[in-house]
């Protein structure tokens, strides 16, 4: 990835967040992606979300695999440690990082090639472990860096820029994640900033593996007529299933909502998610009805967005392991080493 240092400009009008940081404190290097790339909108939304949540950048780790999407962690939060790993293997590095230091706030940025082809296995196992992270799939249905091959997320019948028609059924990260037992699955669109920022915030605060599939059109290779991942197609078939409000723990729920039309999900830190139903009967906490709904909409070619499934009760990795509250990297050597006396005692049984 190319890197251009971004000038930091002080704007007197800019607002400080709760910890006294400006939005520019959450920015990174200048993007070198194509002008109009959906990924850049997602980057901007990530900056917005972390700024709004007032998270200190140094508490965050940002990881990625390989591909256009995986370049983006360089474009936000330069005060956070970053890890641009190998193709499809971001989840394993995130697992290790979380194993070594459970206090870190982990955001992984992947793409449809990175997560649904080469890294399909690791994607599945991050979900299975309910690794405490926000896992974003910037989904454009195409391999951009190698110039336009279909990815596994490309819909059957979708047309490539050079005219080929995709013959293969697509892998849908949303229904895949739900069927694998994911605790948080959402879909958004790089063009819907408001929804995206809310879902990012919900995903960051969710105590488990939050899968966020974001349709993010590739302006160079997959934004033409006949593509089902273009701006036009996505806007025409855009179908929010629920509207989510994120309410930080300190705040009270002020939005008015009618009984039976909303679901409140409380997260471990006391913050709440308010899910307003837009389609009658949609319940993001009921896995089987969600799957049925998604299948119906898929058949109609709709791009269903919103927080589609949530179960904030599923234990994350460390809870299952019963790991020490203290991060592994902060344990004193004296706590880890049994010492000479224990060694002598142990060896008495080896004779």
């Amino acid at each position: 990835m190319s890197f251009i240092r971004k000038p930091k400009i002080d704007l007197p009008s800019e607002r400080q967040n709760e910890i006294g940081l400006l939005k520019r404190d959450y920015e990174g290097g200048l993007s070198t992606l194509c002008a109009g790339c959906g990924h850049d909108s997602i980057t901007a939304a990530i900056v917005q979300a972390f700024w709004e949540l007032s998270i200190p950048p140094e508490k965050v780790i940002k990881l990625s695999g390989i591909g256009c999407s995986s370049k983006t962690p360089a474009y936000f939060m330069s005060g956070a440690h970053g890890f641009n790993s190998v193709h499809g293997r971001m989840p394993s590095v995130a697992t290790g990082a979380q194993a070594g230091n459970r206090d870190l706030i982990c955001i992984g940025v992947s793409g449809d090639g990175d997560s649904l082809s080469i890294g399909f296995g690791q994607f599945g196992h991050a979900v299975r472990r309910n690794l405490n992270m926000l896992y974003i799939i910037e989904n454009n249905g195409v391999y951009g860096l190698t110039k336009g091959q279909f990815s596994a997320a490309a819909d059957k019948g979708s047309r490539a820029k050079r005219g080929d028609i995709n013959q293969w059924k697509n892998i849908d990260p949303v229904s895949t994640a739900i069927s694998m037992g994911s605790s948080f699955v959402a879909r958004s669109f790089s063009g819907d900033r408001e929804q995206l920022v809310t879902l990012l915030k919900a995903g960051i605060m969710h105590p488990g593996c939050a899968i966020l599939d974001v349709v993010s059109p590739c302006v160079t290779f997959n934004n033409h007529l006949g593509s089902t991942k273009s701006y036009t197609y996505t806007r025409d078939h855009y179908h929010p299933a629920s509207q989510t409000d994120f309410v930080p723990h300190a705040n009270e729920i002020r939005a008015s909502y009618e009984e039976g039309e909303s679901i409140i999900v409380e997260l471990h830190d006391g913050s709440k998610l308010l899910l307003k139903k837009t389609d009658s009967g949609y319940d993001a906490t009921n896995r089987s009805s969600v799957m049925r709904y998604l299948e119906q909409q898929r058949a109609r070619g709709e791009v269903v967005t919103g927080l589609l499934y949530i179960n904030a009760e599923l234990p994350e990795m460390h809870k299952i392991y019963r790991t020490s509250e203290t991060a592994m990297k902060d344990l004193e050597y004296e706590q880890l080493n049994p010492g000479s006396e224990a060694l002598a005692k142990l060896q008495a049984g080896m004779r």
Partner: protein
Amino acid sequence: MSEIRVNDFVLKIGTVNGTGSASANSLLLKALFRMGIPVTGKNLFPSNIQGLPTWYGIRASKDGYMSRSLRVDILVAMNAQTYQKDMQNLCSGGFLVYDSTWPRERQLNRDDITVLGVPLAKMCNENFSDARIRILMKNIAYVGVLAALLSIDTKVLRTLIEETFASKPKLIESNLKAINLGYNYAMETFTCPLPIRAETMGDNSKHIMIDGNSAAGLGCVYAGATVGAWYPITPSTGMMDAFKAYCKTYRIDPETGQKNYVIVQAEDELAAAGIVLGANWVGARAFTPTSGPGISLMSEFIGFAYYTEIPSVFFNVQRVGPSTGMPTRTQQCDIMMCAYASHGDTQHPMLLPANPYECFEMAVQAFDLSDHLQTPIFVLSDLDIGMNDWMIPELSWDDSFRPNRGKVLRSEDVEKLEKFYRYLDTDGDGIAARTLPGENPKGAYFVRGSGHNKHGMYTESSSEYKDLVDRLLVKWETAKTLVPKPVIKSSAKETRLGIIAYGSSDGAVLEALDMLATKGIHFDYMRVRAFPFCDEVTEFVESHETVFVVEQNRDAQMRSLLILETNTDARKLVPVLHYNGMPIPSQCVVEGVCEHLQVEAVA
């Protein structure tokens, strides 16, 4: 055959796997150990769980030789399937013990051996009612038979049984009963003891019996490793089992039940490697135990860790390759692969333990080296070391030891800097300081496998790229000064001949040196313990006219590595190779050397 031979014999037990013979064999081994006799126990087992032939060999050697011997003096044939083959392996004058409950085929006789039939199954069926107990006690009964035949101290056996089943008194009773059944039958029926026998000798109280995987797992606990990631693979699995067991003993808070360790069973070896990198990156000590096929899968991440300079420890318990190979057989066949694992210009330090004692020691060293050098470190053990029972000097620990975490700048250190640059070598040893995520925004940097410069920024500049990879060569020179030095055993008489070996080939060479000395051939012996080679290795090669390189692979991998890295004349390095999957015996060394020197080998 009436010559009395004391504390110098090989006992082999042929059974069917899954019949519970392991505890009987361990009882035998420990009894000999407690009598003060140097012993080793080696398993030969199929890649299978139940129903196939398996053997356990015990070598008692008053001279302390630990390698596999080709002789078999006493064979306990508990598996009718393998009678014929087992009998062929028995040396002339040897003894065959078999279960005479059932008739034995006539053609299986040999004139030069003594056959001793014991109705083991019949005895156990008459004395025990439970079906499973009958099978298990049949094994314990042959221990009783051998105790009589070999004059093994029955008091020692009794104590061992009492200790083993301290919490299950019923089992003590049945085990002792089975021992007595076998013992009494043998005493009444045969002339006991045999000319080949055991006798209480030295003091083994400063020694222990352990396998290399357990020792390495224990070493990881003592090194302060907190994250272990792995994918199950023979013959390395025992290492994670051991780490887990020791962690359960030493690393669980008794009050809260919380664990001071994380073990992740990964979805595959690629993920295991990624987990190790992620954990080390954030500052925990993490490792993975695996075997050759696992290293193949991890290679992409290994190159990544080399180039991005992330500490990581890889234990490779080698097995027979190529491909799936023979998972339950031993070789030293991953030397070349590990030395240069991954695409591009990569090279990695390797530690080469020769026994479980060094597995423990080198496990600790590996983490220190890895943190110090910020690079992947390989510990290359093998199935023979990892899964067999070795007698080693007891392990010791210096409580004043503190790990060397290398150049890590903590939050307060970063604060003092004007600016932090991840890959800037400020003191010329080729190693730059790192920071840990979660501590200070000033220390934030970006890990990337793509081009990066000394400031930690992305680059496609030719000169910046070259600067970085050239610095890694400086680090390589530093590594040469830090890795364990070779062990050199100089000949009593001046010689121009040298032998080089490493790892589990050590025992065979040590025994061969004595055998060759009796033939008047003397060698200086160097056991290489690490890669990159330090100056001592080069000097040894240069100061000898002919150097035999003994190893357990087909392609003479260590010899190749020596030629590549020391610029020596390839013609002076003579390969002595053993690669059939069984541990190398001393005879192989004697024959290989003698063949080259055109001296007739003595059997």
